[in-house]
């Protein structure tokens, strides 16, 4: 189980004054994020090894727990830099868009706070690094978890 509580953070206003940002506001702004390490799927890594090719180094960053996402996503740039091979495509649907085609990648998301790695067989490649995150933890992984979002306390708890 991981419980993350945002501490009261320092911030600087437009006129240069230092102010404390309440934990609840910090959580609202940042969202429920947890450290994550993205690695190639074990099967892909074994195939690389068998072909005497180097195994990509894991990439560390933050993942946003996104209950709105059906499927786990990773940043497409990270996937490309790691040299991951897509395993197919998937469409993102919405009210306003019929479907945006994305490449999917088999990856492992390792959560150091849990010391647990979860396989995401079809992580969609999307552009999210500009948000300060490298992954969205979607409902395909959350279906095995308990998530408690305590906005009033500025904390959330995620348990397997």
């Amino acid at each position: 189980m991981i419980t993350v509580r945002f501490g009261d953070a320092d911030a600087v206003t437009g006129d240069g004054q230092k102010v404390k940002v309440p934990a609840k506001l910090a959580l609202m702004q940042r969202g429920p994020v947890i450290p994550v390490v993205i690695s190639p799927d074990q099967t892909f890594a074994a195939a690389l090894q068998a072909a005497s090719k180097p195994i990509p180094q894991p990439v560390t960053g933050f993942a946003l727990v996104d209950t709105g996402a059906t499927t786990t996503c990773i940043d497409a740039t990270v996937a490309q830099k790691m040299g991951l091979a897509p395993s197919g495509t998937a469409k993102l649907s919405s009210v306003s868009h019929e479907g945006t085609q994305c490449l999917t990648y088999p990856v492992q998301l390792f959560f150091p706070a849990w010391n647990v790695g979860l396989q995401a067989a079809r992580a969609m490649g999307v552009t999210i690094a500009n948000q300060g995150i490298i992954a969205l933890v979607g409902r395909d992984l959350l279906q095995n978890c308990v998530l408690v979002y305590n906005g009033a306390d500025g904390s959330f708890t995620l348990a397997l």
Partner: protein
Amino acid sequence: MAEASTFEAQLPALLSQHAGKYALVHGTELVGVFDTEANALAAGYQKFGPVPLYIRQVLPEEQKASAPALVLGILTAA
């Protein structure tokens, strides 16, 4: 994408015998149908090495994923 066209062309036949399973396509070849996506991945890497693959579940329509934050433009689909 050649693989998508190959899959779509074979979909009626696949649905009659392998609905719900996972098809592995490479180029214009339907390599096989597997019970799980993991098995399809393993078979693909064993046959072709660590290369891009095309695996799709045999369903009448492609399942769509939803990520509202992406859709609203807060985040961006690649």
